[in-house]
């Protein structure tokens, strides 16, 4: 019962934070510097790890598909399998998980530390709403950067799959055939579905991590606890939402 109350309180306070942030949307143009800084932190610094992981996920996908499909002569479909898997599912989910681990944890730690060391209280005494300057630029930045990260993950993953298909002996599908299959069975809608998912996951991760950070009580120990809670909650939400969003988009 106590846990259920805590979950409901968490949902309530997250929605309140969203409403408070949305109320200041009009201030975004004059928060350009903060928005750009957050885009840099959320997007640019996450890019290398997204590229490395998606390259190898695309490669492994092609390797596994090639190994399984060689027995029944369906190797020519590797391109479409890798393309669709990455665009519709693995790309957005993997990027969201990376964002939760890398960006969400950093947001939760920074806001929790600001709360514990009374910087958030200081903002409130100055009549500067924390939702306006701490949450809104982050939410705007994730909305802007998430599709970019997801598209890069797709492209690099496809490229990784193409390399493996071309150079691994038992597959032996050249890049032209690989990308032809990818184009034949994949539609614009598939990529869009993936981008919508990425957008939803990223937004929820940042909102939840901001809320957990800003609701931290106590001392330095609670900062660590908040970071753990933020990442775990984000990961659970990504996977739960993945099912429902996928179902809605099918």
């Amino acid at each position, binding site marked *: 019962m106590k846990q259920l109350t805590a979950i409901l309180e968490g949902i309530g306070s997250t929605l309140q934070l969203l409403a408070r942030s949305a109320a200041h949307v009009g201030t975004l143009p004059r928060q350009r510097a903060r928005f750009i800084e957050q885009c840099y932190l959320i997007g640019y610094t996450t890019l290398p790890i997204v590229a490395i992981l998606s390259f190898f996920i695309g490669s492994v996908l092609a390797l596994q598909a090639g190994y399984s499909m060689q027995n029944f002569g369906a190797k020519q479909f590797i391109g479409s399998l890798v393309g669709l898997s990455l665009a519709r599912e693995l790309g957005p989910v993997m990027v969201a998980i990376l964002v939760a681990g890398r960006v969400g944890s950093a947001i939760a730690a*920074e806001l929790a530390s*600001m709360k514990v*060391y*009374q*910087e958030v*209280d*200081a903002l*409130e*005494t*100055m*009549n*500067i709403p924390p939702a306006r*300057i701490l949450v809104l630029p982050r939410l705007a930045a994730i909305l802007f950067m998430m599709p970019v990260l997801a598209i890069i993950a797709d492209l690099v993953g496809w490229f990784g799959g193409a390399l493996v298909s071309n150079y691994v002996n038992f597959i032996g599908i050249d890049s032209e055939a690989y990308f032809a299959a990818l184009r034949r069975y994949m539609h614009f809608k598939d990529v869009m579905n993936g981008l919508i998912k990425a957008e939803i996951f990223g937004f929820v991760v940042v909102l939840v991590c901001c809320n957990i950070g800003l609701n931290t009580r106590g001392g330095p120990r609670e900062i660590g606890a908040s970071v753990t809670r933020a990442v775990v909650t984000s990961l659970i939400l990504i996977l739960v939402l993945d099912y429902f969003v996928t179902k809605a988009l099918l």
Partner: protein
Amino acid sequence: MPSCSPTRNPFTAEETPAVAVSFEGLSKSFGDHVVLKDITFNVEPGEIFVLMGPSGSGKSVLLKHIVGLEAPTSGRVLLDGHDAADEEVRAQIRIGLVFQAGALFNSLTVYDNLALYLREHRLSTEPKIREKVMHALKILSLENTAAKFPSELSGGMKKRVAIARALVMEPQLLLYDEPTSELDPVMSATISEIIAALKDEYHVTSIVVSHDRDLARSIADRVGILMDGKLMHLGPPSTLQNPSDPRLKDFLNPKIDLKNPRFKKLET
């Protein structure tokens, strides 16, 4: 709002009214733990009021009620006769709070810490903001710290920057939470002098929460002592010399008794 003694704006020749603060039957509980019990007293406009009391007596909690960081369980706090719980009232009255640990924004330089309030409320142009920030830093002899980050400052400097940040708000009411804690005696005396100078110069109402007896005796117009959530004493600093209540006596002039130490008594 009724006009009171004027607060001179530290940055222009303008004058704004200093603020009166009234606590009316203020009580606060956290769960079963009662922190403040029916606190009633007034702070006059332009006065330095020092609130003393042992650790955990509820001083900081009382201060937080003035700025809306805590909501009363019962009773209320009035700013010039208006309820401080009302956000609009707090938005109209400029209140500066100097936090115990400074609460400076660690990701911003000292300059940006001071400029944040003016920028966010779009109160001045950037050249004017620069002028005001540098003036506030000059008042507190901190001109050379503008480009530094809070982590590069000493404890005393952080307190002074926190005061400068509050001063930039051109406050009508300045609240200090333990401004001399963790400072050496000379720096404590410096901070006390700054608080007194700001009152003399700008006639701002000041409420200082502190353990510091020297500060209370030298700069306070009146002193209140909180013990176990109750206001045990209220009067000018001269009344602190010979308190009749034994607990007040022990708090104000504690004798170190090695043969019969207090912590042993606490154990029993």
